[in-house]
């Protein structure tokens, strides 16, 4: 299978704090990669770097064979103008921990905003698509509601539909259930599982070990800005080699 995401020796620091200390990671098309790790391990930063919300200090990230955020010429990387980066981002869906739906726009307007304004698709077509997507996340009847009228779980499902509206080839989910009340976690995970079942390429940062075991093709364990261990869930979760992973799993399981 082809490689969708190729991350090569990525470094990133915030001031004197080194958040990513040389990350190498490949994600194959159609696979689900779940990133686990204690808070501060750099997993969210890595995810944000993939769609260039965070600029890296060293290293390179490509998605679908295209270098993200830069143009390479010889051994130099030239930063792309924002317009180009924005175009690249329309091929990568991003779902935030706290949803970040636009509160002043209806659910439908949230979903069609990017297809209409960034991809210049005809409004009618975008609306039809949006209604299909809302139906798929089980919220067909909420199209005219405002985000504030929905539960956290419903908001996150709208956020997923909004990300899918761009027909991305890669979906990044940053702790999609961490801001939810416990009884609402399931409905969001179900939607993500459903997408995984349909062959979407996803990278999910999460603390849901059960979800990782069930859905992930690869589990990546990060700590202190490095990838400590990666492999199939059965290996990383049930038979971890590193002590760091063992210690983490013994606390969360």
């Amino acid at each position, binding site marked *: 299978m082809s490689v969708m995401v190729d991350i090569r020796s990525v470094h990133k620091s915030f001031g004197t704090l080194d958040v990513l200390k040389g990350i190498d990671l490949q994600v194959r098309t159609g696979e689900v990669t779940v990133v686990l790790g204690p808070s501060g391990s750099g997993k969210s930063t890595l995810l944000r770097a993939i*769609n260039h*919300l965070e600029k890296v200090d060293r290293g390179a990230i490509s998605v679908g064979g295209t270098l993200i955020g830069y143009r390479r010429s010889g051994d130099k990387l030239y930063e792309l103008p*924002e*317009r180009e980066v*924005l*175009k690249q*981002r*329309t091929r*990568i869906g*991003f779902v*935030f921990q*706290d949803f*970040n*739906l*636009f*509160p*002043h*726009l*209806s659910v439908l307007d949230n979903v069609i*905003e*990017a297809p209409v*304004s*960034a*991809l210049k698709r005809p409004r009618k077509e975008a609306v039809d698509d949006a209604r299909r997507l809302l139906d798929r996340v089980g919220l067909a009847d909420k199209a005219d509601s*405002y*985000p*504030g*009228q929905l539960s956290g779980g419903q908001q996150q499902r709208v956020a997923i539909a*909004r*990300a899918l509206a*761009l027909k991305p080839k890669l979906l990044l989910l940053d702790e999609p259930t961490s801001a939810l009340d416990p009884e609402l976690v399931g409905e969001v995970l179900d939607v993500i599982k459903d997408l995984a079942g349909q062959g979407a390429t996803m990278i999910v940062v999460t603390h849901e070990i059960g979800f990782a075991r069930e859905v992930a093709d690869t589990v990546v364990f990060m700590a202190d800005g490095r990838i400590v261990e990666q492999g199939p869930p059965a290996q990383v979760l049930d038979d971890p080699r590193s002590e760091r992973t063992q210690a983490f799993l013994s606390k969360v399981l």
Partner: protein
Amino acid sequence: MSSDTLAKVPVDPQIPPERAETLRIVPHRRFGQWTAAVVVLVLLGFAVDSVLRNDAFQWDVVADCFTADSVLRGLWLTLWLTAVVMVLGFALGALLAVFRLSANPVLRAVSWGYVWLFRSIPILVQLLLWFNIGALYPHVFGVKTVDLFSPIAVAIIGLTLHEAAYAAEVVRGGILSVDRGQIEAAQALGLSRWRRLWRIVLPQAMRSIVPPAGNMLIGALKGTSIVSVIAVSDLLFSAQLIYHRTYQVIPLLMVVTIWYTVVTSLLGVGQYYVEKHFARGTKAAR
């Protein structure tokens, strides 16, 4: 209160459950409040009485002049001058706010400097400076400066530059009030910088911009009366022209007062609906 004082309170400690429903609650009588209300109402009554029975107010003259042609023309000038100044002031102010929040240090410094300068100069001093600008630059683009800077042009320029400095801060505060995650979400969706500002940030910023902007609008409406010093015939100046001729100073000032009150009240009503519009999707709207 110690437990033995509590024990001395002479109430029936045991309320039988079947009686609890029939007990009547007697509100505490607030005699102080009643006294204060009566005193204030009496004082107010004296004030109203003194106004109504004081012939010097000349209410008949007020009624005659209220809709006099020159007064209405003055009112019209006040209204459109306010509208022009607010629109131009907020356009320039929004630009300054965007400069101030930009990544470019030169734009940030220019915006900061502008706000600092124009908030420092009293509007009256500024109007007089523009009015006398011909002394500094006798000709602009080959035209005589005094022809270019008519009183009304001076009024528009001076008031706009003044309002823009305040509008810049109001708009900047509004933009800063929008959650950072909103901008990130818009960036992640590939929305252009312009689209992010117009579609995502500004509509949400409006919720915190409208109340101070309403204040500014009402302030600007009354503030335009300052242009009477450079002989622009606004509402106040038109009234002054009449009373300089007739010496009916107080009645004409009452005409002006009533008109300003009427327009300000209408603006307040308008602000209510504008606020309601921009509260879409928030708890306040439901």
